[in-house]
């Protein structure tokens, strides 16, 4: 199975799956930490409306994990506030 990186772990994914789905399948529920209260957040609307699922993708912040198709070239980090 193919993998992408999430922080220091390899996350397996099916072809055509979203990054969010692969993370949840792997039991990774904490996608980001909010700016003000540093609360953990995860997938919420699942269709790109709410921006709660944002992660850092290859250094780029604010990327919606629910819309992004998983790919081996992706290196993903939990987004901490705006970092």
């Amino acid at each position: 199975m193919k993998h992408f990186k999430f922080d220091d772990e390899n996350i397996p994914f099916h072809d055509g799956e979203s990054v969010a789905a692969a993370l949840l399948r792997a039991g990774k529920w904490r996608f980001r930490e909010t700016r003000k209260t540093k609360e953990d957040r995860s997938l919420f609307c699942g269709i790109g409306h709410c921006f709660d699922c944002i992660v850092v993708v290859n250094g780029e912040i604010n990327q919606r994990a629910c819309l992004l198709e998983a790919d081996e070239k992706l290196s993903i980090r939990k987004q901490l506030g705006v970092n």
Partner: protein
Amino acid sequence: MKPLRTEVVIIGAGIVGAMCAYYVNRAGLKAIVIDRGTVASGTTGAGEGNIMVSDKSPGPELELALKSRDMWFEVAQDLGNEFELVAKGGLAVSRGDASSLFELSNSQSVAGVQTKRVGASEIQELEPFISKAIQNGVHYPQDAQCQPMLAAAHILRQLQRRGLEFIGHQEVLKIERKSENLTVRTSTLEIQSDFVVNAAGTWAGEIARLAGSELPIMPRRGFILVTAPLPKYVNHKVYDSDYVDNVASSDADLQTSTVIEGTQSGTILIGASRERVGFDKSISVSVIQRLARQATSLFPILAGAQLLRVYNGFRPYSPDHLPVIGADSLIPGLYHCAGHEGAGIGLSAGSGKVIAQLIKNEIPIVNPEPFSPARFQMAYL
């Protein structure tokens, strides 16, 4: 219905009306602020909160701006700084020939502005993410900023504890002079007073007409782009020095130049486009693109930033681009405090103070002559 009675009616609950109320209240006068909407529902709720001395050439406006800037901090001290007032400092940069920027800063420092020329390495230190191509700049430590809607709301709320009355959702429809009194009418209210202060911003011309006078205040549209929350890429108010040229320009064509700054909520604001298009509120793609281009060339790291929102407001301006502060030449008791264009936040404190002083017959903090409504009203006399 029984008419209300007070000493001063202030029309407009934008930042200018709020500051007029503050100083009128300090002067011991009873006042009512009235607005057709709520607090900050005009231009004050549609702009940025820069309190700048750096973008003004020596002259009456700079003199007022310097005083007004310090007074902002006094107001914050008195009422509590619940409106994010900080002296974050400004950085004016130049891409090419910096001689006009330096010339300006020299003359500004003679006029009392703190300025410091900075070269490439100091610029990088002040703004680590700025384009390496930028070689020259001037640092202005006095430039400050606030959150203007919060400021107007907070000031009015505090003043209500000190006896001020605020009436929202009442549009002024008529202003009449009877014997020694001015009567302000809305559809359901009648307020009698000794003085009326017209702080209706872009709509001040309308208010003057309601009272039987004239005032040439016109709208000038401005856009601001707002990015998604980002790390602290921008520390100061950073602007292209051609912004300075633009402010003093009367060219009717679309003029854009950039001011970039970060806010406490993490968003970055990119502003300072100027167009004269009446009250048309539609968004124009070419302006958005131009502002985006200017911003990314100044801060290349912003290329990846998502654009969240664009908003536009209408800056109130007068034909000579100076605000109108003082007594109406035709209607006794009527005072104007409007037309502050792109500097109404910064100039509001000083302007409010001048109004209170004129009403009390005191000597104002600055020479009021250049701001007098009479300069536009002579023709009607």
